[in-house]
């Protein structure tokens, strides 16, 4: 695999930025600066980054409630993202959406969804619009292992398959849907098997290996743009609690620790170092840069005004 250095650097930068964003977000939470909840993707960064790296700039993504990494990897402005997280007027959704509804249409991110499985049919619609408008574009729809048990998963993939739409169904299997282990929520161990219900290819990849995800995403995109839908399953793990209100009673500390050792950032770094492509100093530089970018975002967000109550009735209707 010969990936240009800039591409590798960009991928690591996105992962580092995601991690820094979330660690900062958690700090803001503990400082009582956030009203609401958040769903962190720490440990899953290779999925959003690998997939977004493997598609094209004109492609669209539909993100999930656990979508910080997906959004950042698709090129979202973190200042406006952080401002949205803090509910500010300068937020990408003017403070009305919050982190469960991050969207950045200009960057091709059509929005995170608070309804598990709720975004899947919508992504199919965007793929339909793509074909009908004869645009050279693929849609990527992210969703979780838990979401793959919703009826919308089934209806949507079936519909996309009969219409042969250019869409990649990217299932981030982080082993849990809230507290339910994936092995308890379904009777199969490889979610990609479900592709066979729709006569489309299913692919399973190690979701903690960003290079593997990247390669798989490229292949899936290629297939989708020519031959229709692909189900791409990315196996990974959710390190943090489900959301801010999770006591973790449903899993063991050992299990979490085991997966912490598989940290996708560390893993990517060691590959990059081993292959002599980057030096430790260069990596540290990217990390520092990510920290600075996020620091800037926090300053931007914190100094931004709250939205005025006058705006509350705006944008209900177009």
């Amino acid at each position, binding site marked *: 695999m010969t990936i240009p250095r800039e591409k590798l650097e960009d991928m690591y930068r996105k992962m580092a930025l995601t991690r820094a964003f979330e660690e900062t977000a958690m700090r803001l939470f503990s400082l009582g600066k956030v009203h609401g909840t958040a769903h962190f993707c720490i440990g899953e960064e290779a999925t959003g980054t690998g997939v977004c790296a493997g598609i094209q700039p004109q492609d669209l993504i539909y993100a999930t409630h656990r979508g910080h990494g997906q959004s950042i990897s698709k090129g979202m402005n973190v200042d406006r993202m952080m401002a949205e997280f803090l509910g500010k007027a300068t937020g990408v959704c003017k403070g009305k959406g919050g982190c469960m509804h991050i969207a950045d249409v200009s960057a091709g991110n059509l929005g995170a969804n608070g309804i598990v499985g709720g975004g899947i049919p919508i992504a199919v619609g965007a793929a339909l619009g793509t074909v009908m408008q004869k645009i050279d574009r693929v849609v990527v729809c992210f969703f979780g292992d838990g979401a793959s048990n919703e009826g919308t998963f089934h209806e949507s993939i079936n*519909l996309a398959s009969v219409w042969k739409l250019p869409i990649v169904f990217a299932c981030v299997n982080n082993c849990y849907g809230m507290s339910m282990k994936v092995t308890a929520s379904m009777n199969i161990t490889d979610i990609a098997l479900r592709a066979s219900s729709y006569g489309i290819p299913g692919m399973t990849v190690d979701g903690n290996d960003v290079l593997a995800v990247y390669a798989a995403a490229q292949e899936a995109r290629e297939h989708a743009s020519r031959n229709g839908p692909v189900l791409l399953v990315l196996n990974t793990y959710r390190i943090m609690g489900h959301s801010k209100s999770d006591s973790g009673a449903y899993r063991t500390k050992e299990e979490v620790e085991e997966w912490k050792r598989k940290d996708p950032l560390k893993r990517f770094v060691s590959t990059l170092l081993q292959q002599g492509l980057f030096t430790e100093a260069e990596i540290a530089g990217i990390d520092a840069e990510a920290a600075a970018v996020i620091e800037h975002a926090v300053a931007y967000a914190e100094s931004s005004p709250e939205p005025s109550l006058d705006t509350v009735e705006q944008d209900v209707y177009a």
Partner: protein
Amino acid sequence: MNEITYAQAIKDAMSEEMRRDPKVFLLGEDIGAYGGAFGVTRGMLEEFGPDRIRDTPISEAAITGAAVGAAMTGMRPIMEIMFSDFITIAMDQLVNQAAKARYQFGGQVSVPMVLRAPEGSGTGAAAQHSQSIEAWILNVPGLKVVAPSTPADAKGLLKASIRDDNPVVFLEQKLLYRKKGPVPDGDVVIPLGKADVNRPGTDISIISYGRMMERCLQAAEELAKDGISAEVMDLRSLRPLDTEAIVSSAIKTGRVLIVHEACRFGGFGGEIAATICDSEAFFYLDAPVRRLAGKDVPIPYNKYLEAGIVPTTEAILAAARDLAK
């Protein structure tokens, strides 16, 4: 001015809009070769082809979501749900997605789609195919809801709905599909949010919409024979609602009878009555604001039972006479 059916008027509106705007297309179950369960789209496949008249598998949530997604990315889908009762299956996509996308994303997107669905009883189709479901979706900011009662309104309001940049639920009236009425020639668009005073009057306001309009007008005709001048108003668009027209009619007559086919308890009649009673019109009321509506039961199969649960012309007449006393 042509005499055409309500179904034809709907088809004409869609066909004309599709000829005008390449972004408009149809999707739904059995709308192609079959022509739709009520024949509304018959012939459209032949004119527009399968790319723009899209038959779908039986997957209401996916159909609705597909409309939302297509609308968010530049198209103007018209989707059909075969019976309005099945909106329940697509309810999340309609209510939590279509209605919310614009607001929750801070105005970044709009969702210009129309969801067409027939409602009402009278066809012997029983509890799951006969409901009038408007109240279930009228407490959802972000949606518009239309329920035309004549071919002319069906055509003009559907054109407005298709051109509207918001999700519009267009509730067709099953028993009206085969009724004919005059429809003006040409590109006549009727703006959403304007009630129509079908018959002006001074003694009592009868406010209704949809299939009950015909009965209200018949009752008004009878009332005239008694020397009672009834004003009959067709709301046409339920959200946005023409509160101004409602309130001024109530002020004028001082007596209001609200009629709808949907079940009474929790029905949209409550909103209309409350609008009047919390307005200036309150001070002009000479009698209680009366609601006449469907009985609070699921729709039964037997034709006598089925006919017995919706307001009849006689019941409207009796209620109006009683009110006008």
